[in-house]
């Protein structure tokens, strides 16, 4: 008996905007000039927010903080494809997604300053709290997608995670259920190539992360994660497919963590400056600005103005956050359970 081929698949990589700022017209998503400017502004806002958060931590005004520097295209490119009411299950390094969806910047700072009230998403948004337990948010997204399907809602559910998450059991369990039930899900992996000190090759022997999806019976695609157009385009397509009953998609955004894992980390201990320099040249914001100025949509003056506007938004958020009164001790009990037990109620009274 001859051996048969049971399955075969191709792993595609999507890239639209190159490092020099040239876009492939055939693949370019339809974005108005206003939308292009908005994309740039959102990326700059995320960058300036991030720089400020790191600076605040160094000054002792924020707790440990995980920078997003270098991941702005992956975050803003995908977030702009979402509708504001989308159910989103983040990990803990998606501040650019939050800002783009309109999550209050002051609340993000409040959370990273150690005040959990910053995690309370505004009613208009359906963003789950940051998830520090790596990959464990993936099954939650699966559950929300099961509920979407049960309710016949015309919605999709989005889960964000990093490359490290793909090594965890919940990645497997969530992907497997998503495939079995053919759920309206979009999985977005920001493969920033480092899980603290473990590089991608220490995380997986696969040629890509995207290909893992095929084993679960749905499509995975790798996109240039520093190319906001590729990320946007892939996310749009995946959302359309999910909403129309076509099942889940896995999008691997190949990007780079330009900063340390967190402000408590020193990436100089485990990676070479040459590698960082190589990726600094691929900075997604540089690329976006080259594209826009190439099209005559962004002058040097306009770049400055965009930065100034972002800076004043962040300034205002810092002022707002620092003006908030600290949580009262009773706040410990406020939202623990719907109804405190007699013992909890006594503890709340200080006994």
């Amino acid at each position, binding site marked *: 008996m001859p051996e048969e081929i049971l399955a075969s698949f191709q792993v595609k990589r999507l890239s639209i905007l190159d490092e020099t700022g040239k876009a492939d017209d055939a693949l370019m998503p339809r974005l108005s000039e206003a939308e292009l400017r908005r994309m740039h502004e959102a990326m700059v806002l995320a960058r300036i927010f991030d720089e400020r958060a790191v600076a605040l931590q160094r000054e002792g005004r924020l707790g440990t903080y995980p920078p997003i520097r270098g991941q702005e295209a992956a975050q803003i490119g995908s977030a702009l494809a979402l509708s504001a009411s989308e159910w989103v299950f983040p990990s803990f390094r998606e501040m650019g997604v939050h800002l783009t969806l309109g999550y209050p910047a002051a609340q993000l700072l409040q959370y990273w300053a150690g005040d959990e009230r910053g995690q309370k998403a505004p009613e208009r948004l359906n963003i789950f*709290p940051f998830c520090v337990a790596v990959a464990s948010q993936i099954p939650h997204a*699966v559950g929300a997608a099961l*509920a979407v399907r049960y309710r016949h809602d015309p919605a999709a*559910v989005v889960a964000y995670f990093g490359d490290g998450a793909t090594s965890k059991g919940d990645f497997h*369990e969530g992907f497997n259920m998503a495939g079995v039930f053919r759920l309206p899900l979009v999985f977005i992996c920001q493969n920033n190539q480092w899980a603290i000190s473990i590089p991608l090759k220490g995380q997986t022997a696969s040629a890509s992360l995207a290909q893992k999806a095929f084993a679960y019976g749905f499509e995975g695609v790798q996109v240039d994660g520093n190319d906001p157009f590729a990320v946007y385009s892939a996310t749009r397509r995946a959302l359309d497919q999910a909403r129309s009953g076509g099942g889940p998609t896995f999008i691997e955004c190949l990007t780079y963590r330009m900063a340390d894992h967190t402000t408590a980390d020193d990436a100089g201990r485990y990676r070479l400056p040459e590698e960082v320099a190589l990726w600094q040249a691929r900075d997604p914001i540089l690329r976006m600005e080259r594209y826009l100025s190439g099209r005559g949509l962004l002058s040097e003056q306009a770049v400055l103005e965009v930065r100034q506007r972002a800076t004043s938004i962040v300034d205002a958020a810092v002022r707002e956050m620092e003006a908030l009164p600290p949580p009262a001790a009773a706040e410990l009990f406020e939202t623990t359970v719907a109804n405190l037990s007699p013992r909890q109620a006594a503890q709340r009274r200080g006994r």
Partner: protein
Amino acid sequence: MAQMNMVQAINQALGDEMARNDRVVLLGEDIGRDGGVFRVTEGLLERFGAERVLDTPLSESGIVGAAIGMAAYGLRPVAEVQFLGFAYSAFEQLFAHAARLRTRSRGRFSCPLVVRTPYGGGIKAPELHEESSEALFCQSPGLKVVVPSGPYSAKGLLLAALRDPDPVLFLEPTRLYRMLREEVPEGDYTLELGRARLARTGNAVTVVAWGSMLERVLQSVAGYDAEVLDLLTLNPFDVQAVLASAAKTGRVVIVHEAARTCGFGAEIAATLAEEGMLQLRAPVLRVTAPDVPVPLARLMDQYLPAPDQIRAALDEVLRY
């Protein structure tokens, strides 16, 4: 009223609540076509369809994690974990998420789900099928832990759990599934979570027990002037009921089938030391399994608290 065993009572609670509330959805391994390995969900797939009785892949963390997402979205999922020993791989989902979603989101999201799982020893099953690790789950503020002791309490507590605004771990004593039959009302009734039940009144000694140990305690105390308290909810447990009975009898024996060290009996004994010491006439004693992993069937009788051990503890406290 009908005579029912615990399997029938739980099945009726699930079916009735599903009929009343279309947000109640079941998910788990083998719960649909097979009706569950203990047949607890038998007939529900036929009655409510595959949209509401989901046979899932073998995936405990995925099942509990998905239930969290469903609950946050507005459904009332009931996840079955086939045996408590398999819930260990869902531990992170229960601890890191179900128990604290309300806290982490400052009330923006809540997690009204029930995780049902058979637990406890004495059914001649393979390894990890007879665990009694209830105390582990009680150290997770935000998660309620409920243990019925018979068909009547199983139905009333499960209906209460299905309407509770927070996550509930519902531990079904496997050994009792088909052992006891009781009068169970056909209609709707709930037993308030967090309330113990006086299973027997007495004056000389209080015995605190739950789950399958309750039945063993009731058999063991024949001839003693013993009060027996059926805890029913472990987290939060009925502190006042324990203190009131201890104040009345002055002697307390706690019986549980889990290992002794850091078992739930320790919490009860510590509470008595803090709040009931001056009413006690004798040391608080625990009758428990030894501090060893749960054995297989051939050593189960040597592992579980035996009636003569329970009576020996009663005799000891009654000497004071």
